């Protein structure tokens, strides 16, 4: 197992959205800070830094995780996926993103990246969830703007395979 000393800056390398990234950080640096301020991937947001709001959710080896409760060194050698990795290289939105736009599932958009990442993980494992299951996953996130109605509608639409039609 890799050992890092408390005050030492170490090099941390992992793949971010399929591309190799690397940077130096103290062992205590949070993954949120590393992504945002060392790598410059600012799509992942920080809403509480205590694990409640879900804004900072990313995928680590395909599994949703709170990056504010993760140290950057813990990502060493892993595959990290963030909101920047969802759209096609030409910028075209994926089905989940399109459904969010169509159903007005975001206002300020600050909570949105984390919610997209949670459902990216969840829908991969359960492509056709019930509404209760959708609400269950969403209850791990706080959104102050939307009242959640549009988000539930968007995920329902995409899981029903008809992100084009507002329900």
């Amino acid at each position: 197992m890799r050992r890092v000393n408390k005050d030492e800056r170490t090099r941390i390398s992992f793949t971010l959205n399929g591309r190799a990234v690397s940077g130096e950080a103290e062992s205590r640096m949070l993954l949120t800070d590393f992504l945002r301020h060392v790598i410059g991937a600012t799509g992942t947001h920080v809403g509480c830094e205590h694990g409640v709001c879900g804004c900072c959710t990313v995928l680590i080896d395909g599994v949703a995780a709170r990056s504010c409760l993760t140290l950057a060194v813990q990502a060493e050698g892993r595959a990290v996926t963030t909101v920047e990795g969802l759209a096609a290289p030409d910028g075209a939105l994926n089905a989940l993103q399109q459904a969010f736009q169509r159903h007005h599932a975001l206002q300020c958009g600050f909570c949105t990246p984390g919610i997209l990442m949670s459902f990216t993980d969840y829908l991969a494992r359960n492509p056709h969830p019930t509404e209760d299951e959708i609400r269950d996953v969403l209850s791990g996130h706080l959104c102050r703007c939307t009242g959640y109605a549009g988000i539930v509608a968007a995920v329902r639409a995409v899981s029903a395979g008809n992100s084009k039609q507002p329900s």
Partner: protein
Amino acid sequence: MNVRSQSSGDFLSQALGIPLVRKEDPALLSGRGRYADDLPVASGTLHAHVIRSPHAHAKILKIDAAAALALPGVAAVITGEDVRQLTDPFLIALKAPVHQWSLAVEQVRYVGEAVALVVAESRYVAEDAAELVQVDYDPMEAVTDPLAACDKSAPLLHPACKTNEISVRKFAYGDTAAAFAAADRVIALTVDYPRLSFTPMECYVVVAEYRPHDGSYDVLANFQGPFSTHPVMAKALRVPGTRLRLRIPPDSGGSFGIKLSVSPYVVLAAIAAKITGRPVKWVEDRAEHLAAASSGPNRITRIEAAATLDGRILGLRLDQLEDYGAFLRAPMPGPLYRMQGSVTGAYDIPNVEVTNRIVLTNKMPASLIRGFGGPQLYLAIERLVQRIAVELGLDHLDVIRRNLIPAEKFPYRTAAGALYDSGDYARAVATAIGDGRLDDLKRRRDTARAAGKLYGIGFAAVVEPGMSNMGYLSTLLTADARERAGPKNGAVSMATVNIDPLGGVSVSADVTVQGQGHQTVLSQIVADRLGLDPADIKVTLELDTAKDAWSIAAGTYSCRFSPGTAVAAHIAATRIRGRLAGIAANQLNVLPDDIEFADGQVRSRSNPDNALPFGRVAGTAHWSPVMLPDGMAPGLSETGVWSPPELEPPTSDDRINTSLTYGFIFDMCGVEVDPVTFSVRVDRYVSMHDAGTLLNPLIADGQVHGAFAQGIAAALYEEFVYDENGNFLSGSFADYLVPTVSEIPPLEILHQETPSPLTPLGAKGMAEGNCMSTPACIANAVADALGVKDVSLPLTPLRLHALMAGKP
């Protein structure tokens, strides 16, 4: 269902009034937002961390920063003494010796008050250093209860004021004494509105730079306005406004009023930049935000009605005691006065007396919050109306309907001076209860009650003001004092439309982005005028006080967008359109009256084949100014300025038209209270809105859903709690309960559109309504379910259990 009455909009294209999806979304959905903390900063930028008071009330004896300063990477530790030397206290709306600086000076007055600022090369180092700063306090007795704070024996927050109750103003409209003398019954109630915030998911961010060559500050902050606070910040920094350049980032992670209160930190970071000679960045964390950012004011209202036996309200008396916490920050006491004109709500009540009191306590300072005085007022009025029904043995809905302002009385001047522009309240209520909705609620109630459950039905009828009169706050002063200070009134909105040589259209405006979708709506408005696709209109809203057109009313607050800035954009685009029509008429050899704008063309209405591409006409203005029609000014940039004349200053007898537009909301709901756990389940909720003409129904519904969730939060969950010693007990999202999706019940939204005759687009403010109506509606339903009079928000199981303990 969408009940549309005729629109006054005169919309030319299909761009406006349709549920267009938002142009903001693709970037935000892709992690390409540009929020304050995402933007690059100059190399060498330092990072700040605020040291905060653990005491509610204490003298600061000594701050020893030596050990912190010895830590490598620490640039400065700034204290109240520095701030006192370099800045002036913030101006306040009241003549009272309540001095607040950006750091505590000599004493602290609430838990979380900023005491010192550590500035270091990274945030991590700044936080390390903060642990080494030794602050010695001498704790004093604190007071958190507003009534106790009014007592003569209470510890004083600001001893120079000699009292904590720093303002008492009495207002009399009509002949209220006669109304009470004529009444069959007087029905009274005391209502408590709690402290809470709508905690945007993004906290405060400030990046400040000092420019020594001209002594100016360049500050980026996720400030939301009102920009009436800009002079307050500039004065505190002792510079003219031009030397405080304030820039707003392109995106903001929500605001709901809360991000006005980043303003003290703008000043603090600016001073830190001056002291250190380096740019300084500060990012607030959630614990700081909950303890010290901002709260809505709590209010105790004693309200009584003079009523006839059939439930007609002849007169009202309100005594409103509002608790602003430790300081009165500008533009406070806004919430206490913003509703002054509409203090009689949706009802035709000609006589009213109001006493407004302001008290200070050892809690975080209160400030703007969505709803802004409406939730407090309507909880009192709507609870009272329910009590009138109960005490007179009448049907609650009948009492509401008996008192609503009748449609034929619009435009309606309220007793306190508001000019309600338009409305048909009775029809809105009829529609909402129609289609079997009320019958269904009653059926649910009867079934539940028959099964021994606690079920109640609640109603609320509220008037939602939009676009504040900048003069309303001066109602706080006596007529004489107003005279001396000079008249205050109006509200100026501005938007600029610019067309480039290829016909590209860009728009900027005097609003700050918070997530409402203003870019989309502005693009719809301008596209509508110019016959273009909204997708072709580029809207940039990064307000910059050094370069943009703005007035003291600028910012996004009090629902000023639809009745204000939207109109300014409409005016600017209409003027540009006139100009382009003149150019095209010349070239097409037709009269300007025959010109129409459609499908990206400027063409003859009578002969659409006689057409020019839009870009070509625009190009003429750029490339060949000599070819312009005689007398036409060159250039294709227009700033629309909108200043509605109805926003007059307060009259000498204190009547004030507090806002320009007045929408209407009627809510009804059914709730079930669990007899064992006392948790409240909202079974069905219907919300009817009349916000005039809807500019974008998709966005409008989004605003209603969002405000509704916050209304539910206020009714059932959120509260900032202090103990009697002023300790703060809601310091994390584990203690301060922001509802998740599981707590938000389904909502049925209905619309009626009664256009405002006072704005060219017919649109009214509409984004705050359910923050006002929902707490009252739920409180009424719970009161109905439990058969009780006093229901305090939030209606938590703990509270309801205490309320019901001892009842059979």
